[in-house]
């Protein structure tokens, strides 16, 4: 396993910079997630690390060694794709053994057997070893593709949206399993996704990319609790963060299109700001300083989403469990004042 560093990587396709001066370091045994919308440059980053794409500028280091000139085969990383790319006519065992039997590796059969058996156990597919892969479910196939990466004992795992073709329930359980396996095996992993919940739940650290640039890097807590930009704030969290435009007026911040106002926090606040409030930080509270009427109730079982209308502002509030509140009811509410986010007119965190 190994430590991976990118230094000022720029990659152009024609006139378009797919990656612009991307620098990051993935530590040994770390689960690192690249999160961003389609076209952000996530997959390109992964392909540059694997050597499948050659950067125009910058360097890639494995364990401190520059490997820019290494061919993909010499980089010793394993790729797991969204598509399973298994051999349908081979058994699960032979699919798992395949990379080890390649002429490059020529692993002895007893070693192969040992590694295949161990990988199958980790992935809970021991009972499927004799089956042809064409007869497996989607979840089982993805386990086999991950197994095929594991048996190689590569320096690092590069995973490109491996869960996105699976149905919601399966994704949920594989997410937990993948994280458990990664932590117990200590394998350095870089995982690409556009799904914020995958990033938050699995990552040790997340890099948020947009338009070829890293907007923020940090732990899931950093990204969720201290988003560096408004874009990052809206990318993570569901339901989405409330964004309220406000301006200063007589020592108060007035939230536009509404009667809501609150004292200006600190003395560095510019004239115009956007206040970000996560829905769980909008709290229905009989002592709260704001009032509004409940325009919509979404009972999700574990929690309830209230749409609270105050003036022309609509705020989402998430409260645990079932709510006794009725449609059109007037409610008092407040923000968890210590959990508010402030952004300037360029969307940067203040």
């Amino acid at each position, binding site marked *: 396993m190994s430590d991976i560093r990118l230094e000022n990587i720029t990659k152009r396709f024609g006139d378009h910079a797919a990656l612009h001066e991307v620098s990051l370091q993935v530590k040994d045994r770390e689960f690192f997630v690249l999160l961003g919308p389609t076209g952000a440059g996530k997959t390109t980053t992964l392909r540059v690390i694997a050597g499948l794409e050659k950067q125009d500028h910058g360097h890639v280091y494995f364990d401190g060694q520059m490997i820019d000139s290494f061919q993909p085969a010499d980089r010793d990383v394993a790729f797991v794709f969204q598509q399973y790319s298994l051999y349908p006519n081979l058994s699960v065992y032979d699919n798992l053994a395949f990379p080890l039997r390649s002429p490059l590796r020529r692993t002895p059969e007893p070693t192969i057997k040992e590694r295949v058996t161990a990988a199958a156990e980790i992935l809970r597919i021991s009972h499927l070893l004799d089956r042809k892969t064409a007869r497996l479910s989607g979840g089982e196939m993805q386990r086999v593709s991950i197994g095929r990466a594991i048996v190689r004992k590569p320096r690092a795992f590069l995973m490109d949206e491996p869960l996105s073709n699976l149905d919601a329930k399966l994704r949920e359980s594989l997410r*937990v399993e993948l994280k458990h396996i990664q932590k117990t095996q200590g394998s350095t992993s870089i995982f690409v996704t556009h799904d914020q919940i995958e990033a938050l739940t699995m990552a040790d650290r997340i890099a948020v990319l947009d338009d070829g640039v890293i907007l923020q890097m940090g732990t899931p807590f950093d990204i969720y609790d201290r988003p560096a930009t408004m874009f990052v704030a809206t990318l993570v969290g569901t339901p989405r963060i409330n964004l309220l435009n406000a301006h200063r007026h007589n020592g108060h911040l007035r939230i536009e299109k509404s009667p809501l106002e609150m004292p200006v926090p600190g003395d560095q606040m510019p004239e115009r700001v956007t206040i970000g409030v996560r829905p769980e930080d909008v709290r229905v509270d009989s002592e709260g300083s704001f009032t509004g009427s409940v325009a*919509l109730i979404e*009972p999700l079982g574990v929690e309830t989403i209230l749409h609270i209308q105050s003036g022309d502002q609509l705020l989402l509030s*998430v409260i645990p469990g079932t709510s006794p509140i009725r449609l059109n009811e007037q409610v008092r509410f407040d923000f968890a004042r210590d959990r508010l986010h402030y952004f300037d007119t360029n969307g940067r965190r203040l």
Partner: protein
Amino acid sequence: MAQIELRQVEKKFGESFAVKPLDLTIQNGEFIVLLGPSGCGKTTTLRMISGLEAVTTGTILLDGRDVTWAHPSDRDIAFVFQFFALYSHMTARENIAFPLQAQRVPRAEISAKVAEVARMLRIEHILDSKPGSLSGGDQQRVALARALVRRPAAFLMDEPLGALDAEFREGMRAEIKQLHIRQEATTVYVTHDQIEAMAMGDRIVIMSKAQVQQVGTPHQVYHDPANLFVARFIGSPGMNLLNARYSDGKAILPGGSAVTVPGAYRAALDHALNDSDGAVIVGFRPEALRVNVTDGECSGVVYADDLHGGYSMLHLELADDVIIHGRMSRDTAHPIGETMVFDIDPAMMRFFHPKTELAIHINGGAA
């Protein structure tokens, strides 16, 4: 406005059931969701209500009128599909006006109605655009406007948000529901997304394998699922379900922990489980898991622990391959491999029969 009643409606393709005999009364003004995985029969049911699909047997009543064999156009029902099905050569305005023109509504009335529905859906600014230049969300709004403008007796919607990005879906979901609240038009909505169903439905009809599994309010299907399928399908993650053994007021979980069965359930379990030799399935929602208790009855080993934003999930392994999920506040972190003691909130404990897979109710044994 309409009440829709299905009486013993079934659909067969050859020998196989697409929909097994189904009885359902949809009240006037109700928002009802047909929910289930693909192939469960929900879309076929919707299509039979619309008249696009003929029933094999059974009766469909619209406000008491038998419409089983009525042509779709004679049912006064509007259909909204997943795919927008807009005319690409027409502007949004012309698309919305189209059904009224087909009904030969006077021109002045058409433009008044189009303006009204456009205001309601906040698409006034795009009325002169062609669909190709609109975002997915706006195209779906235009498609909705076209359905709404006719003021039909009922709306049938087949995964109308299915083609939209996750970020649009949440917003559109709320818009459709709000529209329903304002219009109070009877709506039958098909989806495979349980969160959408919970958020939108007054009642949810959960289907699997051509058969209705449960009809109930979001609260009912979440807290009192009729069977294991519903318990698993609703919630993310679904209900924790453990193969246990019941005797003397305790349920022995995989791994050996013994949970005290709430007193109210004991007689029902004694009665319901006499044919299963005490085997029972214990179910509880992730928020029913209580850790940091001093005298917890159960224990498990931390399998993983992850942040979901406003809360965390703790995954505990009770025995080989048996993992339960608990919803936690965010301020706790637990290392993998640590043994943890826990309790299950007795008010949230549920029981299912291992053979029939049906819920065992406090009064009256197996459902």
